[in-house]
């Protein structure tokens, strides 16, 4: 069986390694707003509210523009201060809301949630008025004919029981064939529907994030919460309806003289009716025995037994004693079940809000940032790099070499004998006059000897064969400048790039060009050995 809780703990970093030392250290560095948190902790046990949900949704949206590194650092600090609530992601998120400081965002979820409260209040008021109206109609007594108890039960109790069954069908997650369609049609009858449509319409227009509950993108996460909000509204209406009925009944009982009778065309004798009403009264028969109709009352209050015309005083007292039974029936089969469904709806709504909050888009990432150690591997300060002019290579690339006789120098063991590159040298118009060595495994003293040898042949140019894949180091540039300064003052110095088996790549040639360009030597040439 899949455990959603386990999943959240995992993704939110709750089970991640958490070196105790790190958190203690983080707590010491957490910002001044921690003082505010201490006060806030006292209220951490309250339920997640719709206002919290709206706030977190809007805050996560606003936070997208904050650079990731800043978010990581900030949230880890906040997370360290909220470690005590690590196993309760919804609480941690609420704590984060208290501590975070985001530009272009303020906690105005309460304003948004206000509309929902108005909707709830309106439905409660509507239920109360309708309940009062219906009860006033049903218990209407002019003194001519007593109120039919059966009619009162049929109007005030029976529909409620039926609607309660409908509620069970709609809300209990039973998987039965055809139930889906029935549920869909029941939702149409739900008074919460109009409330939802109003919230949907004005939520977006108000721009206060009210639409979060109904946004299609949040449907998967918030569908159960929305369903129970729906139920909460409808049960609030139903509960208020029962209160309205009871209040009307108490009013009428207190300020008018009601007389009840019972009558039906069905073949129902007094005994059967008495068993029926006593059956109904079983739940309260021991606590409120006066609310259980006696056999005498049932027998005496049947319509055809009543005398026509004005009812005698003794009889009126007797007939009026049906009201405790009616009131108890209303409480037992209307008010209390609705109170129960209201509380269930309220509890389930809260539960699903708490469950949805850490699953809102962006919330798992936030929890992970708060609960997992902040791992940083990047450099703490910016890098100082050498400025390179990408256009610098051009002047050397196109400098032509005149046909010339040169002394060949193999730099860093690039070539062993000029016969290996004879053909390439001919193509470039270079006539080699001996081969010297420098660089690489040779010592700087040997380099010096090579320079001296070059100085003895001042009428020749200098061609240095270098491995193209090895970048020109300062070591090479030292040698080059030494040759130029000491022997070949006006002679051409040609750097011949050799690429071994793979040839000289464009990027290697570019590296050499860029580097040698820095010497600003007009007689320095660079050629690629074919």
């Amino acid at each position, binding site marked *: 069986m*899949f455990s*959603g809780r386990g*999943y*959240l703990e995992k*993704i939110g*970093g709750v089970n991640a390694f958490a*070196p105790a*030392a*790190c958190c203690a250290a983080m707590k010491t*560095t957490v910002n001044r707003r921690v003082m505010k948190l201490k006060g806030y902790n006292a209220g951490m046990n309250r339920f997640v509210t719709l206002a919290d949900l709206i706030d977190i949704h809007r805050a996560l949206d606003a936070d997208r523009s904050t*650079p*990731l590194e800043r978010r990581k650092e900030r949230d880890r600090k906040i997370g*360290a201060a909220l470690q005590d609530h690590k196993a309760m992601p919804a609480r941690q998120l609420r704590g984060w809301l208290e501590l975070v400081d985001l530009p272009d965002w303020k906690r105005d979820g309460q304003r948004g949630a206000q509309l929902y409260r108005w909707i709830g209040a309106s439905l409660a008021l509507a239920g109360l008025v309708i309940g009062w109206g*219906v009860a006033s*109609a049903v218990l*209407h007594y002019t003194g001519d004919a007593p109120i039919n108890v059966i*009619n009162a039960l049929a*109007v005030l109790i029976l529909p409620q029981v039926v609607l309660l069954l409908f509620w069970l069908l709609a809300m209990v997650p039973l998987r039965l064939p055809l139930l889906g369609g029935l549920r869909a049609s029941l939702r149409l009858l739900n008074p919460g529907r*109009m409330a939802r*449509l109003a919230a*949907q*319409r004005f939520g977006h*227009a108000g721009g206060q994030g009210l639409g979060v509950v109904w946004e*299609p*993108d949040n*449907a998967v996460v*918030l*569908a*159960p919460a929305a369903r129970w909000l729906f139920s909460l509204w409808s049960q609030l209406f139903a509960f208020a309806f029962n209160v309205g009925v009871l209040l009307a009944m108490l009013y009428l009982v207190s300020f008018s003289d009601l007389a009840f009778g019972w009558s039906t065309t069905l073949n129902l004798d007094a005994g059967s009716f008495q068993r029926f009403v006593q059956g109904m009264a079983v739940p309260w028969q021991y606590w409120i025995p006066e609310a259980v109709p006696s056999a005498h009352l049932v027998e005496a209050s049947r319509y055809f037994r009543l005398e026509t015309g004005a009812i005698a005083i003794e009889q009126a007292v007797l007939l009026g004693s049906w009201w405790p039974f009616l009131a108890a029936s209303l409480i037992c089969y209307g008010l209390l079940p609705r109170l129960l469904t209201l509380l269930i709806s309220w509890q389930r709504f809260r539960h699903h809000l708490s*469950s949805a909050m850490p*699953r809102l888009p962006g919330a*798992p*990432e936030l929890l*992970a940032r708060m609960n997992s*150690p*902040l791992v*940083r*591997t*990047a*450099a703490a300060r910016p*890098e*100082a*790099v*050498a400025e*390179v002019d990408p256009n610098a290579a051009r002047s050397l690339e196109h400098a032509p070499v005149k046909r010339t006789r040169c002394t060949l120098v193999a730099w860093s*063991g690039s070539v062993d004998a000029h016969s290996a590159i004879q053909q390439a040298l001919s193509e470039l118009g270079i006539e080699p006059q001996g081969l010297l060595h420098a660089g690489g495994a040779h*010592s*700087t003293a040997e380099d010096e000897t090579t320079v001296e040898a070059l100085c003895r042949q001042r009428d020749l140019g200098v061609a240095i064969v270098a*491995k193209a*894949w*090895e*970048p020109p*180091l*300062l*070591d090479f540039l030292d040698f080059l400048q030494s040759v130029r300064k000491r022997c070949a003052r006006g002679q051409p110095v040609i750097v011949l790039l050799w690429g*071994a*088996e793979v040839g000289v790549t464009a990027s290697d040639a*570019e*590296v050499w060009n860029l*580097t040698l360009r820095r010497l600003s030597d007009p007689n320095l040439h660079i050629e690629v050995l074919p």
Partner: protein
Amino acid sequence: MSAPQFAIVGHPNKGKSSIVATLARDQSVAISPVPGTTLENREYPMRIDDETLYVLVDTPGFQRARAALEWMQAQSASAVHRPDVVRRFVREHRDDPRFDAECKLLTPILAGAGILYVVDGSRPFGGEYEAEMEILRWTGQPSLALINQIGASDYSDQWRKALGQYFRIVRVFNAMTADFDKRIRLLLGFGEISDEWRAPLERAVHILQTEQAQRRALSARVVAETISAMIGHTAQRRLTEGQSTSQALAALRDQYQRELVAMERDSRSEVEHIYDYAHLERHENVVQLLEQDLFAKQTWSLFGLTRKQLIATGGVGGAAAGGVIDLAVAGHSLMLGAGIGALIGGISTWIGADRIAETKVMGLPLGGESISVGPMRNVNFPYVVLGRALLHHRMIEDRTHAYRGPLELNVDPDTLPRFEFEVRKRLEKVFGKLRKQEALAPELLDVLATEIERLMERGEATHAS
């Protein structure tokens, strides 16, 4: 004990900075073909909250290694004194611009850093490296040689022979293509060069592995959220008077497609952010939709109710009002009140609805004629989106911070991974609910994300017919 330090040293242009960028996951490292780009030592501490586990130090490359070694050799021949000679070299040449690079790169080593000597295994060995390696040997610090395979040619055997004479451990590592496991193995290798460094490096590796698992889980979550939102997504547009339905529908389909593309694009960025790629250039072909994939409908509505629902609601309202009258007269009206009320409610709703629908409240019309597109009904759609997301995730997970090219995701849809029957069955359970938008619950996303995470862990969705 202070955190171990590792100085990345070597010849210029042999990929030192690439290795640092990859291991430090830092895109700010300057990687340039021009030698001498790195002017200063730069530290890359691996920190867990406020605790440093190890430090990588990128250094400038050797420039005058032969001259430096010759100076050292002229000072002493005794092996015992060689580290002191190197120390003296640095002390005496600290302000000498000729040996600026050598002094800088030797400083962290003399302070106790381990040596990570980097060479390019795709280029042949040369005598010019010997002076560098000799200087490093003179420091007496624990060391490891890394053959960085930059190009296609392979001279690693040649290099192993040469490096083996100077370094106890020689590893091959390609900074551009090394996936997470290879990076981890290399870090563990750093721990092998000195016993006292093993524990902090093992801890660092454990933390990085945990972080990697969490990154995968978060990416899977983002992908699950995106797929869920894309399947259920709808686009709606109100028809204005005289507007052609077909034209409006075509425009709406375009809008729908654009919105889906934006959702997918945002999801890519989120996954890239999870892996510390903040501004990655990405080339990706957009998800293609066929007209028949989209469920389009034209409806009239008021307060979000269709005409049928509205009439039923009006009828129920009328009946309720009539019912109250019936009750008031104690049923003597034979329930005619309710019947008549229902009829009047229904008819008046029918007649008045259009006028009410045109009414605007706070600038918004209460209802009217509208068209909508979506949700997506093509059963293969979520698998295509998932396949593309898995491919993207794999490329991001395997990408190194040394590689600076754009992310190429232009793939042929036919080459996307197929899913095993069992995997498809499990996924279809979720996708089916999302498609029908029924039995929606947050746990559905958890299940989908867990399934996607499994696929990510396996590296790819396995192929099956």
